[in-house]
C-alpha cells in the first residue's frame, strides 16, 4: 500500500498537480503512520540577518548571531539558563562546573572545568583549550589569533588581564582590577576546537565551513548568504539538552515581507521579528506569535552636557510622564512592553523605584511650569533618531508619537535623522562632538542583559568617549560609587541588591526617557512544538519538535 501510494505520488505531472498529489500522498501516509504524532522533524527558521552569522565561535550579527551560530554550535565556560519563560535568565555552569574568586585577592578567579567533555571532532576539552581560545581573541601574535572573532569578542571581556592553566581541569583568570561582573563577561566567550583548527590547516576560513565546538548542534551545511543546516550533537555533555529535532535550518531573509511570505508559503516554519503590520493577518491564518519580555530597552539617551535642558530633573520627569505608552503599544499591534523603568518589568534588578512612569500630561505640564517652561515659553530641542536599525523597533512612528506627546505639554522637538550606522557613530562620539549637532538626546535601543551593558556603560563618569559609550556625559559620584560596589560585590545575591539600588536611581532620577521594551517577537507555524521563549536574547532550540 505504501509503495503504491509513493509511486503514484511520484508520477511526473505539472508542478502544482504533482505537489497536490504529493500532499495527498503525504496525508495518506501520515494516516497510515498515525502513532508517530510528533516527528522530530526539520525546523526551518527565517532570520533577519542577511548572511549566515560567523560560525567560528564568536558570532557576528549581534544577539541574533550568538543566538543561532554561537550558543548552538558552542558553549561558554558559563552559559545562560534558557529553560524558563517565566523568570529572567540567570547564569548557569557551562563548560565550567564552578567559578570562585580568591578571597585574599579579588582579581584571581578559578574556573573548574567539566570532566569528559569532547569537541564535536572528538578531541578533548581541557584547560589548554580555554587558554587557546582566550589567546584566539586577546593575543594578537598567537598563531590562532583571529581578527574577526577578536573584533566581536575582545570588547566583551574588558576585565580579563592574564590567564593560565593550573591543571588540565582548572584555569585561572586574573582581572585587571577586582570585577565581580566577570562571569557575565565570560558567558560571551565561545570555545572552538583547537584540534579541528589544526586539522584544517590552521585556517579559520576552512573552520567556518566545518566548525567544531562542544555545543548541542553540529553544522553540516554552510551556504553563505543562503542557508546553514545543523544536526544534533548526540554526544552533547548535557543529556537534557540534546536536540530532539532531526535538523535545524537557518535561512537569511533580511526583508520583513519576504520573511512573512516564506512563512505563509510554508518555506520556513518560524520567522524572527515579524513586522507589526503582519501580526493580525498571521494570527488569522493560524500562525502563532510568540513574545516575551527580555533585557532590551528603547530609550532616548539624554545629554547632560552644560546647557542641556535635561539637566533639570523636573524636565526629565515631565517628559517621562508625557508619553502615552499604552497608545504606542496599540499602534504596534501589541508588540511592545510599556516601560515602567529602565529594566523591563519583572527584571531581577528592577527594585522598588518610587517614581511611577505613567501617562499624566497634567502632572507633566505642572513639572514643566516649575522648570520655567510653558505654552508661552516652550522648550525647544533637537533629538537624533534613525529611520531603522537593529533593535530600534519602528523608530519613525514611535518617535513621531513621542514628538506629539511632548508637544502637548510644551516641549517642541526637532528631529535630526541619521542613517543607522551613522547614528551609531554619533552615539560613539558623544553628545559634545560636532557629529551630535547640538542634539540633547539620541534615540537608541540597548542590550541590557548584564550589569555592564545594562547600567555601567551608559553612565560611568570615565566611560565617556573615547573610553566608552556614556554618550550624555552623565557623571554622578554617588552612581559611580554604586557601580564600584557592583564590581566588588562577589556574592550574587548581594550584587543583585546593589543592582536594584542602581535601577531605582535610574528611574527615580528619570535619567533616560524610558519608553518601551521590545517583546522579541517571532511568528511560527502551529507545527512547532515545545519552544520555551526565555527572557533572553539567546534561545534554546533543543526541546523543540515538529508536529506532522
Amino acid at each position, binding site marked *: 500500500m505504501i509503495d503504491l501510494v509513493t509511486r503514484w505520488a511520484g508520477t511526473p505531472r505539472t508542478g502544482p498537480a504533482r505537489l497536490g498529489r504529493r500532499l495527498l500522498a503525504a496525508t495518506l501516509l501520515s494516516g497510515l503512520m498515525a502513532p508517530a504524532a510528533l516527528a522530530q522533524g526539520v525546523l526551518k527558521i527565517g532570520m533577519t540577518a542577511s548572511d549566515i552569522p560567523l560560525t567560528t565561535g564568536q558570532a557576528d550579527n549581534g544577539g541574533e548571531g550568538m543566538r543561532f551560530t554561537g550558543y548552538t554550535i558552542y558553549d561558554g565556560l558559563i552559559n545562560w539558563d534558557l529553560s524558563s519563560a517565566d523568570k529572567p535568565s540567570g547564569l548557569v555552569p557551562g563548560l565550567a562546573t564552578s567559578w570562585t574568586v580568591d578571597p585574599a585577592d579579588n582579581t584571581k578567579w578559578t574556573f573548574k572545568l567539566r570532566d569528559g567533555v569532547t569537541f564535536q571532532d572528538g578531541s578533548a576539552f581541557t584547560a589548554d583549550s580555554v587558554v587557546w581560545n582566550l589567546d584566539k581573541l586577546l593575543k594578537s601574535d598567537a598563531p590562532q589569533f583571529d581578527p574577526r572573532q577578536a*573584533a566581536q569578542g575582545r570588547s566583551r571581556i574588558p576585565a580579563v588581564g592574564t590567564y593560565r592553566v593550573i591543571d588540565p581541569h582548572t584555569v585561572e583568570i586574573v582581572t585587571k582590577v577586582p570585577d565581580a561582573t566577570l562571569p557575565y563577561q565570560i558567558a560571551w566567550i565561545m570555545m572552538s576546537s583547537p584540534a579541528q583548527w589544526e586539522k584544517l590547516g590552521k585556517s579559520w576560513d576552512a573552520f*567556518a565551513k566545518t566548525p567544531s565546538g562542544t555545543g548541542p548542534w553540529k553544522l553540516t551545511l554552510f551556504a553563505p548568504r543562503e542557508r546553514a543546516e545543523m544536526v544534533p550533537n548526540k554526544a552533547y555533555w548535557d543529556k537534557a539538552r540534546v536536540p530532539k529535532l532531526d535538523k535545524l535550518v537557518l535561512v537569511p531573509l533580511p526583508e520583513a515581507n519576504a520573511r512573512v511570505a516564506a512563512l505563509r508559503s510554508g518555506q520556513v516554519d518560524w520567522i524572527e521579528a515579524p513586522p507589526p503590520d503582519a501580526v493580525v493577518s498571521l494570527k488569522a491564518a493560524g500562525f502563532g506569535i510568540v513574545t516575551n519580555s527580555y533585557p532590551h530597552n528603547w530609550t532616548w539617551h539624554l545629554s547632560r552636557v552644560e546647557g542641556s535642558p535635561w539637566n533639570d530633573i523636573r524636565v526629565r520627569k515631565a517628559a517621562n510622564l508625557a508619553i502615552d505608552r499604552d497608545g504606542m503599544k496599540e499602534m504596534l499591534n501589541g508588540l511592545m512592553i510599556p516601560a515602567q523603568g529602565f529594566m523591563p518589568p519583572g527584571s531581577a534588578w528592577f527594585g522598588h523605584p518610587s517614581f511611577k512612569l505613567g501617562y499624566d500630561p497634567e502632572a507633566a505640564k505642572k513639572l514643566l511650569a516649575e522648570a520655567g517652561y510653558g505654552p508661552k515659553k516652550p522648550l525647544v530641542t533637537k533629538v537624533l533618531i534613525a529611520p531603522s536599525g537593529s533593535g530600534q523597533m519602528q523608530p519613525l512612528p514611535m518617535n513621531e508619537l513621542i514628538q506629539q506627546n511632548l508637544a502637548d505639554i510644551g516641549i517642541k522637538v526637532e528631529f535630526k535623522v541619521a542613517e543607522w550606522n551613522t547614528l551609531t557613530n554619533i552615539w560613539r562620539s558623544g553628545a559634545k562632538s560636532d557629529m551630535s549637532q547640538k542634539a540633547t538626546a539620541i534615540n537608541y535601543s540597548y542590550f541590557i542583559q548584564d550589569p555592564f551593558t545594562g547600567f555601567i556603560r551608559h553612565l560611568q563618569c570615565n566611560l565617556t568617549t573615547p*573610553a566608552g559609550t556614556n554618550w550624555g556625559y552623565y557623571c554622578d559620584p554617588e552612581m559611580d560609587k554604586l557601580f564600584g560596589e557592583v564590581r566588588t560585590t562577589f556574592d550574587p545575591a548581594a550584587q543583585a541588591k546593589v543592582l536594584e539600588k542602581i535601577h531605582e536611581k535610574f528611574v527615580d532620577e528619570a535619567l533616560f526617557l524610558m519608553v518601551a521594551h521590545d517583546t522579541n517577537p517571532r511568528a511560527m507555524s502551529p507545527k512547532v512544538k515545545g519552544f520555551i521563549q526565555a527572557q533572553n536574547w539567546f534561545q534554546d532550540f533543543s526541546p523543540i519538535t515538529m508536529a506532522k
Partner: protein
Amino acid sequence: MLRFILRRLVAVTPVAIGVSIVCFLLVHLAPGDPLSAVLPVDASPETIEAMRTAYGYDKPLVVQYGLWLWHVLQGDLGTSIASGRPVTSEVGRAVVNSLILACVATLIGFTFGMVFGFVAGYFRNSILDRLASAVSVFGVSVPHYWLAMVLVIVFSAQLGWLPSTGAGPDGSGNWRPDLEHLRYIILPALTMSVIPMGVIARTIRALVGDILAQDFVGALRAKGLSEFGVFKHVVKNAAPTALAIMGLQLGYLLGGSILIETVFAWPGTGFLLNAAIFQRDLPLLQGAILVLAMFFVALNLIVDVVQTALDPRIERG
C-alpha cells in the same frame, strides 16, 4: 571587422578606468563607517583602530585606490568586511545566480516582447494592436516590487503553488534546470521580464511600422513575394535594433534588481548589493559594482560587434 573590434577595444579602456574610479569613489561618498556594521556597538577604540588598519582604511584615499586597482588587475577584489570571504567568490557566485535569472527573464521578456511588438506593428490600430500595446505599457509602467508582492501573495501565500524565496530547496549551490529548481525561478523571472517585454514590444512595434512603410516593402509585395517572405525581410531589418535593445536589457537584468532579488531572496547581485549597502561593506560594494559595470561595458561591445556583423553599414558609419 578586426580593425573595428580593436578600435572598440581601445575605446573601452578609458571607460573601464573611469568606471573603476567612479566605483571606488562613490562608495566613499556614502555616509557611515564601513566598520560600524560589523563591530559590536560598544567596541573599544583600540578594536576599531585595529580593524581600520587591518582593512587599510587608515591610508590616504589615493593610496587606497592604487592598492585596490593593483589587486583588481590581478583578479583580487579584496575581502568582504562583513563576511570575511573573498569578494571575487562572493560576486562570482551572485553573478552566476543573477545570470540564470536574467537569462530566463530575458527569454520570457524577449519572446513575448517580440510577439507583441510584431503583432502590434503588423496590425496597427487594430484591436490586436491595442491589446498588445496595453500589455506593453503595463510592462514598462508597473512597479516591480508591487508586482513581485502580488505574485507572492497569490501564488505562494494563497495558492501555495510556488515558493516565494530562495533559489532552490537546498540553496543555489546545486542549481540545475530541473522542475524543482525551475519552480523557484518562475516568480522572480516573471516579475523581472515585464520591463524588457514592454520595452522590446514598444520598440519593435514602432520599428515594424516604419519598416512596413518603406518603399522596399512595397517593391517586394509588387514583385509578388509572399507575405511570409516580406515578414522575413522585416524581421531581418528589425533584428539589429532588437538585438541592441535585448543586449541593453540583458545588461540591466544582469545587474540584478535589488528590489526583486530582495523580495524573493534570490541570491544574486541585487541581493548581494542590498546586503553590502546596509552593512557598509565597501570592498563588496566596490567589487560588485565594478564587475557589473564591466559586464555592461563588455555586453555593449559584444552587441556592437554582433550588430556590425549583421549590418556592415554600422562599421562604415
